[in-house]
């Protein structure tokens, strides 16, 4: 049974066969042929960007889509030996030597889940993480002088009181800055790049800023000043910790 891929826009004819063959060599575990399809100056980045199950049995080109910047996106579904399916979106560029993959990612996007989530060893930020577990965003604040403190400190840098509280705040903020990270710096990031990191300024916490990954950041046009709202991503296991994410509102 062969299903024809969906073609969206004026997809060059030759690219259909190229993308189908690419899926086949990836599914067959043919590293040399896979690498040959990659844009040569970024093979390492591309290899680390996508995450696929170890044993693949087949591939299926779902869709080719011409994008506004002239790249062509290929959605290829890979089926593993256990029957699970993984979709990668590769973006193809026409170079002198032919069509090459210049970007690739897993779709739909999922934020990276980091083993580092949770309190630091000295426990200074533990109330924040416990707050997330209770469904609240808690930020350190000095009881006597009301100063908001972030990152957490052992005492109030303003009045030197050790009497610190952890009130819950409404996680409504605005984008103070942002970056879209493409490089898979650690194996934990593979399958999740590129992802957008937002520094959000919280009016309810005296303008203190909290970092977090932006949900639905894939292809999002992000700007400083945009409103965002925090969401708490549940812990992936009993021992792990929930994590704060941001979403454009």
């Amino acid at each position, binding site marked *: 049974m062969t299903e024809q891929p969906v073609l969206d826009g004026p997809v060059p004819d030759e690219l259909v066969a190229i993308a189908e063959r690419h899926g086949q060599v990836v599914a067959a575990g043919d590293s040399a042929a896979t690498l040959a399809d990659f844009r040569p*100056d*970024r093979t390492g*980045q591309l290899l680390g960007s996508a995450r696929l199950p170890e044993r693949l049995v087949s591939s299926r080109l779902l869709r080719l889509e011409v994008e506004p910047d002239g790249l062509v996106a290929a959605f290829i579904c890979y089926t593993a030996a256990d029957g699970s399916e993984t979709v990668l979106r590769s973006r193809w560029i026409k170079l002198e030597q032919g069509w090459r993959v210049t970007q690739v990612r897993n779709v739909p996007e999922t*934020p*990276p889940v*980091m083993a*580092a*989530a*949770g*309190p*630091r060893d000295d426990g200074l*930020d533990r109330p*924040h*993480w416990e707050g997330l577990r209770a469904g609240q965003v808690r930020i350190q604040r000095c009881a006597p002088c009301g100063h908001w403190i*972030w*990152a957490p400190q052992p005492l109030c840098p303003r009045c030197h009181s050790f009497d610190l509280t952890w009130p819950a705040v409404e996680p409504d903020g605005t984008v*103070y*800055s*942002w*970056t*879209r*990270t*493409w*490089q898979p*710096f*650690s194996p*934990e*990031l593979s399958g*999740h790049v*590129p*992802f957008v*990191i937002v*520094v959000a300024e919280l009016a309810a916490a005296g303008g*203190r*800023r*909290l*970092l*977090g*990954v932006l949900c639905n950041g894939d292809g999002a046009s992000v*700007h*400083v000043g945009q409103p965002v709202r925090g969401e708490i991503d549940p812990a992936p296991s009993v021992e792990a*910790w929930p*994590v704060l994410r941001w979403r454009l509102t």
Partner: protein
Amino acid sequence: MNRSLRGAAAVAGIGSTPYYKRGTSPHSSLRLNLEAILAACADAGLDAHEVDGFVSYANDLNEGLAVGAALGVREVRWSTMVWGGGGGGVAAAVNAAAAAVACGQAENVIVYRGITEADDGRQSYGKGHFPPLLSAHGVLTPVQVCALRSQRMLEVDGVPWSALEALVQASYYHAQRNPAAVGYGRPLDHSTYADSRWVSEPLRLYDCSRENDGAAAVLVTSAERARDLRQVPAFVLSGVQGAGPDWSESAENNASYTSAGFHPAMVARLWGEAGVKASDVDVVQVYENFSGPAVASLIDLGLCPPGAEAGSFMTVPNLVVPDGVLPINTAGGNIAEGFVHGIGLVLEAVRQVRGTSASQVTSADVSLLLGGPVAPLVSATVFGSAATV
């Protein structure tokens, strides 16, 4: 009581190993440091047994006392590590050596830094500075933090993208004149820069410094002794280090977010002690972990106008020898010469005062070294020629 550092100490010797591709050094970081120190002493014409002080930064694995023991020095009188991660300590290390010499704590102080990936591990430059409030969100490396700062500098302050490229292009331009540079023989054109892969927006591959194995060292001694040694002295006119309010380890809550960290009081002290103005600076070695923070440094120092006007100043012709108004990173810098936590920038700042750079600025009397943009600590040193003291 004279509390001034100005003119009390000078760099009298410089030495370095080659820049090896990271992970390929044939020797340990201790051995590379020792090679660089011996070269610096030989350059100065000083018996290395006469060294009596050691200063390093960024958690160099080789403590001064161990280095001194290996060298068999007669006495270790001064041994200092500058706290604060990253290259922010590079100029602070020179300043600490100069301070030790100026107040008689030591006579011949070596500033050194060596890295090998085998000894230090991968990404040693960021170790300890990515607590869970960053790493839980996939922020694992300095480039991501510097990208966040750069993005706001571009988007809110209005510094144009071209300013970042000009800094990179000037570095590559100078590297083509420096056979010791890793980027020598590899000129960079606009399309290669602009088409290179994103690392973390708005920074692409060529906006990032290299990573190398290697070591370098400089010998700091008293002004009097430096005059008697073999080389033209590079006098320390002033030095500053530090961090402004809300600056360090604040999980992106720095008060002056798009600043490189050189706050106004620090900059005023730098110029005041040296007795020079920004417009007197002949040449700058500006630490570029990444292009954006280096541009922010030049803005902080008043060497480059802020905001949109940065674009009209930051052009390749303005930033290169022989005719640029402010040549920068004349050996190629961390981006195009090689990266051992910025120690190479110290050597080049000294070469400019000596008149021996491969991209020499005509009569470089005031040579500025800037360390560590956006790092928990930043630092700067103004070097001057004999004409300035």
